[in-house]
């Protein structure tokens, strides 16, 4: 079944550039561990996990780890090459954009306008990509990553997107890249977007295959075990949960029968260290950023940043897949600044 052109023998040598080691005579992973993980910089975007050739770098309960690395590490340096925080250049603000707007998908229902989903599916309809990577969340908020190839797949499955809980998106993106024929679209948090960009920078195959990166506005993410414990403690019943949001510095969990509200700041107790050092709220490196803040209820704020994003956005408008709303840039300021303040946590 493999149809490959006949090739000449002998042209089979090539060179691969590997990065400098900051700690000489140590394995690359040790470098990574020393520079990123141990310094609490790691945002758990899992770019390193996704690229690790042995598949040995793993995502433990709350930290990226490589058990037995002395024996098993291949020392190829891939993790260091792709880590967005190895040479951390914090990004913040709203970033460049072509269009700041808001939208509400007519085809999908989700929190707010479901524009993340809409972007992926419109890109799929355009033929730009053949799959999107989403996060699926069960009633208990446990996440699993989901490759979506068609609209029907969403029927029995409310794709809530990543909601304050880490999800292993990028390892799945790697798999998707090996399987895809046209391209992949991915929805992720700002740190993941940075990871994807780093992957694309380093490896042409990602450049070629990852076509659309939708970033989400992100204040922070939590570890599943901790956040669920915390929320249950606050009286949130996951079986009745409809929607959660952060409105004006307050965490609001809407359930069928009641609402639970408390100050976001209270969640700082369980705030992961990586997020406390993250300054990017709007995913400035993405093709399109989407979030609920900055637009009317039921709409998603949409920040179209690149040509690809623009193309898809135009397509959405052309096909009438979404209601176009109005985005208010100033509403974002509070959270952008809130995150920017975290710069002080970074000690390089």
């Amino acid at each position: 079944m493999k149809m490959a052109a006949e090739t000449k023998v002998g042209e089979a040598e090539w060179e691969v550039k590997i990065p400098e080691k900051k700690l000489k005579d140590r394995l690359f992973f040790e470098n990574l561990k020393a520079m990123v993980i141990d310094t609490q910089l790691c945002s758990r975007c899992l770019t390193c996990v996704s690229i690790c050739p042995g598949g040995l770098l793993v995502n433990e309960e709350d930290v990226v780890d490589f058990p037995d690395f002395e024996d098993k590490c291949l020392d190829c340096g891939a993790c260091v090459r792709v880590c967005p925080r190895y040479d951390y250049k914090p990004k913040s603000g709203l970033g460049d954009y072509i269009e700041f707007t808001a939208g509400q998908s007519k085809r999908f229902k989700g929190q707010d306008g479901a524009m993340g989903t809409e972007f992926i599916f419109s890109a799929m309809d355009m033929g730009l990509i053949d799959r999107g990577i989403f996060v699926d969340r069960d009633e208990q908020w446990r996440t699993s990553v989901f490759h979506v190839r068609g609209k029907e797949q969403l029927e029995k499955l409310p794709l809530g997107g990543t909601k304050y809980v880490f999800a292993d998106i990028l390892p799945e993106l790697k798999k998707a890249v090996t399987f895809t024929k046209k391209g992949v679209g991915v929805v992720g948090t700002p740190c993941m977007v940075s990871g994807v960009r780093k992957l694309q920078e380093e490896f042409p195959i990602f450049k070629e295959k990852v076509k659309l990166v939708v970033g989400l506005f992100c204040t922070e993410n939590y570890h599943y075990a901790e956040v669920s414990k915390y929320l249950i403690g606050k009286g949130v019943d996951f079986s009745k949960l409809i929607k959660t949001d952060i409105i004006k510095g307050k965490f609001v969990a809407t359930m069928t029968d009641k609402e639970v509200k408390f100050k976001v700041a209270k969640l700082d107790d369980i705030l992961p260290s990586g997020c406390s050092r993250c300054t990017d709220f709007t995913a400035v490196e993405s093709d399109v950023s989407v979030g609920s803040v900055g637009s009317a209820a039921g709409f998603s704020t949409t920040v179209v940043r690149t040509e690809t994003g623009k193309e898809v956005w135009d397509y959405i408008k052309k096909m009438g897949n979404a209601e176009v709303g109005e985005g208010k840039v100033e509403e974002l300021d509070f959270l952008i600044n809130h995150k920017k303040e975290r710069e002080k946590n970074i000690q390089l």
Partner: protein
Amino acid sequence: MEEEEKDRNIRNVHSGILSPLRRWGTKWSLWPCHFLTSCCGVELAHAGACGFDMERLGTLNMGISRQTNFIIVEGTITRKMARALRIVWEQMPEPRFVNVIGACGQRGGIFWNSYNVTYPWKIVPVDFFIPGCPITPEGLIRGVRAIQEKIDGKDITTIKFKKVELPSGGELEERMVPTTPKLLAPTPEVKIDVKKSVDWAFGNELKGRLKRELEGLYESITITDTNRIAIRATQEKFMDVAQRLSDIMKMDHVKNVNVIDVPHERKYIVEYMVSSYSVDELMPVITTVFTEIRREAEPEFPSLTSLWESANYSEREMHDFFGVRFEGNEGMKGKFLLAPDTPETPLRKDFKIEEERYVIEEGVPLTPPIDPPQYIPHPSSVSEEEYLKMPAYEDVVEEAEKNDEFVAFIGPHHAGSGHLRWVMRMKGDVIVDVIPDPGYVHRGIEKLAENRLYIQNIPLAERPNITDCINMNLGYVRAIEDALGTEVPERAKYMRTIMAELSRIGAFFYDMGIFPLFMGHSSGFMYSFAIREMVLELIVRMTGSRCTPSFIIPGGIRRDIPDDVLDLTRNFTTAINKRLKKFENIFVNNPVLISRMKDVGVLTREEAIKFGIVGPFLRASGVEYDVRKVAPYEVYDKLDWEATTGDAGDCLGRIFGRLEEIKQSVRIVKQAVDAVREMPRGNVISEEILGDYKEASGDIKGYLYNVYGNLVLPKGEWTSVTESARGTVLYSIISDGESNVPYRVRVITPCWMNLRGIIEASKGGRVADFWTVYASFGYFPPEADR
């Protein structure tokens, strides 16, 4: 425990003053209580039949445990069967011996990681193991000889290997162990109505008609392939759609009931494949009606048995497999195919089976440790009565007693039960009701198939029915070829036809061999197995294997068949006549037999359709449906032959119909061989599928894995319908389009469909008629249980 019991048997033979006499007597009178559990039973029959004649060694097959002293465990012991094995062993007087033949009974063979397979050597002490899948009759006789030698005091393995030092040296560096070749798509998309543009004029017309008739009920209607059309409906309107299909479109039977588990989308897809025997142009069309239901622990779904009775057993099966409750089907109380202690809902995707290992690692056992079923606990832990109790159907017995009826439990180990348990209620000599308890040979090939590469499933596809191996193989491969759109070289098509027809002849003579046995007519058995031996000789020369050739591969056949074998095949078509004539004289035309069969077990045309009977048995009831005519494949449309029908619908009609069919098969083989001999030798595998390996088109040797290892089917459901010897065999492969293992494989074998027919046809008959009906349907339990 086992060692001790094994010793005891041998000590038994060797003890006492008269031990030489005792030894000698036991040695030459090893009567096997054939534990005919599965495929290897076919070869046991061959060893007992005139081809090899085990009786030469004093080994006379007998089905009764008390009077025999030797168990031959033929193949798979499932969890359900395990207990029967133990019971039979306990019933047997000492000294007793056990041989296990076939790989399934040793380390599980091809079913090594099945959820329902266990090891006989954990249940009873075993003396000898004979490898093979299935074993050859020679191997079986070698096992008997080995026991004889053992009784004489020479307990040895009959093969001695010479150990040769492996080359050493070379730089010692750590090698990486390759990972599994299985390529599993992450969160695969399972879509069974993938649109395919095909040149099928009637399809568009049918689609239009369906759209009109089902106005407002369906969600979408898609043509998925030639003769395949899929209707998507919501769960609420599903019943209405089915009702209309049945009433207005005259779709009168269900070919397949299938559930597909999609855990990551939290849904089950429930599909019914329906078709029609009453409308001619709908005959080849399979209409799939499906819906998606939420995945819960025990989701409910309305049963369609009120519309299509033929869905009944398959619905029960799906209840076993997935836990989907079909409301309205009365069989939802307990398990049907599975044993009480088989893992619950084994076909759900979250039930994982053991993964393959490709290297020997220190400390890792060769096979997964399978515990013997829980109902064979250590004897000390339970009382003896508990320990050997089979399910007693107390309610049935109670009810029968009230009505002055008698209940007999027949099987699973019974000379005439064929490893299926029947609970027969009779009033006097008249059968009131028969309750089937199948699944004693259920090996879960559907689960195994979704854990193996497409190419690895070829042997698996054959295993349910090795008496008709080629047609089973062909059915599976055709489903793959349909999906890939591969065009098979002409020569290979002819070869396949020849082999398929030989296989059909073989299967017929298998059934015609078992039938006489059920009637107590051993000559009929011997005569038909002699003819079968000829067929197997041809198959072994063509393929190298007697019963399980796995010879048909996607795009062609494994290698070209030499001319001398073709000549032999041509001779066979005339040579068969002589022995067939004698067989007819002594058995088929025997007036005693005729009187046993005439007007016995009658299924009318309506009943046959209602209960979903397939194949020659359906035709015997007057339905003109033969896949080879209705939707011709291979070269059937190029050859001159006739399909058979009848209208009596009784046992006699079924037998004579099949006899005529065999004559037609011989006719096909004759024409096909003549045609092949005109053709140039060579290309028998499609070059399109070979890709870079075009040179291998005459013989795949060397490149099977390279070519087929990463075979990936396009997304969608690929259904093939093939006319096997006992009827329509349906393979439905659901592919996610990315993995090189199927997402789900559904196999509907003819015997599974015919099971209902046996029950219905035997009701109201005489007790002895039950076996006539049973045998006239050619029921082969491994095929039904899969």
